[in-house]
């Protein structure tokens, strides 16, 4: 027997209710919905926060405390590991005879010059390669080849050409700084949003105006990342540079201390490196705060 046509019609109507028919009553599901308690702070959390400056100091201070305890308990041979107090004493005695100042100034001189020249060369190369198509062809591929050569392997050549004086030491740092600055700045210039460039053109910016108001400001965050890398490279290469026939500098001091078996002075040198590295990083953070105030990135939870 064939199905009743009237039944079929009424089924179709049940699936597609027209505007005239009343909406079907809502049927609640018979299973309960699992609920979750979300913890609400009511904004009270902010008051109990530890100042971030204190948090940043926590790890170094804790480390110093443990170190002092270990040294004071005579757990390790005092010739291999001195106490933090011994390091401070070594610093004081070196300072009083004027040695520490001499080494510090020599190292700072090399790093500052190396950074200044390296940043200048890396940035100019990045601008040429970033702004001009021909610049990219001329500069970028060559830079990528040279970048792969370990900078320290260039040391013999540098010595051959420039001797063993200050210029050779600064040249090594310049080389090491140029590449991170170049790589990051070039990528940053090329990474500027094409839509912003187009908008600049649409509102009548000249070529130079486009570079000044759109492309370079947009490349600043990437450049600052390069600067941080460069700072690390500079201190690393400074140490190597000061191994070659130097008569002053922190690296030289550490080297000498090793032959005198003076762990306290070695550690003093390392602490100085760390302090300078930290200070440099803080300086870049300060620049970022100033130069990138337009940005509202993720601040961390």
């Amino acid at each position, binding site marked *: 027997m064939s199905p009743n046509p009237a039944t079929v019609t009424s089924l179709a109507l049940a699936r597609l209710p027209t505007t005239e028919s009343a909406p079907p009553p809502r049927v609640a599901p018979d299973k309960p919905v699992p609920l979750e308690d979300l913890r609400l702070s009511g904004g009270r959390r902010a008051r109990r926060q530890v100042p971030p400056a204190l948090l940043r100091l926590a790890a170094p201070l804790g480390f110093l405390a443990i170190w002092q305890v270990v040294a004071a308990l005579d757990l390790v041979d005092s010739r291999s590991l001195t106490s933090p107090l011994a390091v401070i004493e070594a610093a004081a005695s070196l300072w009083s005879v004027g040695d520490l100042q001499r080494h510090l100034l020599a190292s700072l001189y090399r790093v500052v010059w190396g950074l200044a020249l390296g940043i200048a060369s890396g940035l100019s190369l990045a601008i040429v390669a970033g702004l001009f198509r021909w610049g990219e062809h001329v500069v970028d591929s060559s830079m990528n080849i040279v970048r792969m050569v370990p900078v320290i392997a260039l040391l013999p050549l540098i010595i051959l050409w420039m001797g063993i004086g200050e210029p050779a030491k600064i040249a090594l740092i310049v080389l090491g700084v140029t590449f991170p600055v170049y790589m990051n700045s070039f990528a940053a210039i090329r990474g500027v949003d094409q839509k912003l460039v187009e908008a600049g053109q649409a509102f009548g910016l000249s070529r130079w105006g486009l570079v000044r*108001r759109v492309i370079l400001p947009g490349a600043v965050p990437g450049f600052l990342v390069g600067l941080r890398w460069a700072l690390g490279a500079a201190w690393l290469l400074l140490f190597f540079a000061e191994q070659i026939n130097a008569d002053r500098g922190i690296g030289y001091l550490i080297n000498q201390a090793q032959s005198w078996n003076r762990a306290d002075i070695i550690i003093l040198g390392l602490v100085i490196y760390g302090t300078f590295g930290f200070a440099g990083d803080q300086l870049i953070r300060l620049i970022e705060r100033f130069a990138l105030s*337009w940005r509202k990135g993720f601040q961390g939870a």
Partner: protein
Amino acid sequence: MSILPLRSSDTTLERADPLAVRIKGLQRAFDGRAVLYGVDLDVGAGEFVALLGRSGSGKSTLLRILCGFDTEADGVLQVARQRSIVFQEPRLQPWLRVLDNVTLGLRDRDAAERGRLALDEVGLLPRARDWPVTLSGGEAQRVGLARALVREPDLLLLDEPFGALDALTRLRMHALLRTLCEAHRPAVILVTHDVDEAITLADRILVLKEGRISLDMENRVSQRSVRTDPVFERQRAQLLNELGVADAVA
């Protein structure tokens, strides 16, 4: 009004009143695939034209050509020399403060003063010193409008400027745009995919289909009472039909 010939063969105007845009036989192909296929369009000075089209119909391409971004098209094209654009995304320079964004590229001495007036017109003068990142979507788009209007354009190009805004903000932006257009009287080409928006705002509504203007309709709906005007539904149905959304009409 100055007319800028990009690729002119004959320059006789067919209409007596001044034109802001004159397009004849405009063609554009990407890799041999034709997107615009002989577009003819005249837009009179002060005329508000809405350009509708499905996605991929070439309406954004047409706007980019009018803007001067895309010069590889073929045909005759004359557009007002004083023209500016509002993009779908605000495209504010994030490292320039709001006022500097508005006056971007202006070289006159009174640029800052005019920028402030334009910001005041869109109700954002108090935000002049703020960074764009602190603006809401609607505020950023209002800055985009101020940036376009401060140039006193004879032709204002709007590339789906309200597409990314929420429905309430969009309604407020419609009212603002209407006020601003009444005050400045530029010719406007509004690219949109929103039929209601076109009927609410425009004097004339065009549909771009298969690379041509397939419908050129004078908007007869009374601007004072858009929704209650009986012409509204009829026009809406006609436009939706032209856009190939016939189901929604019934």
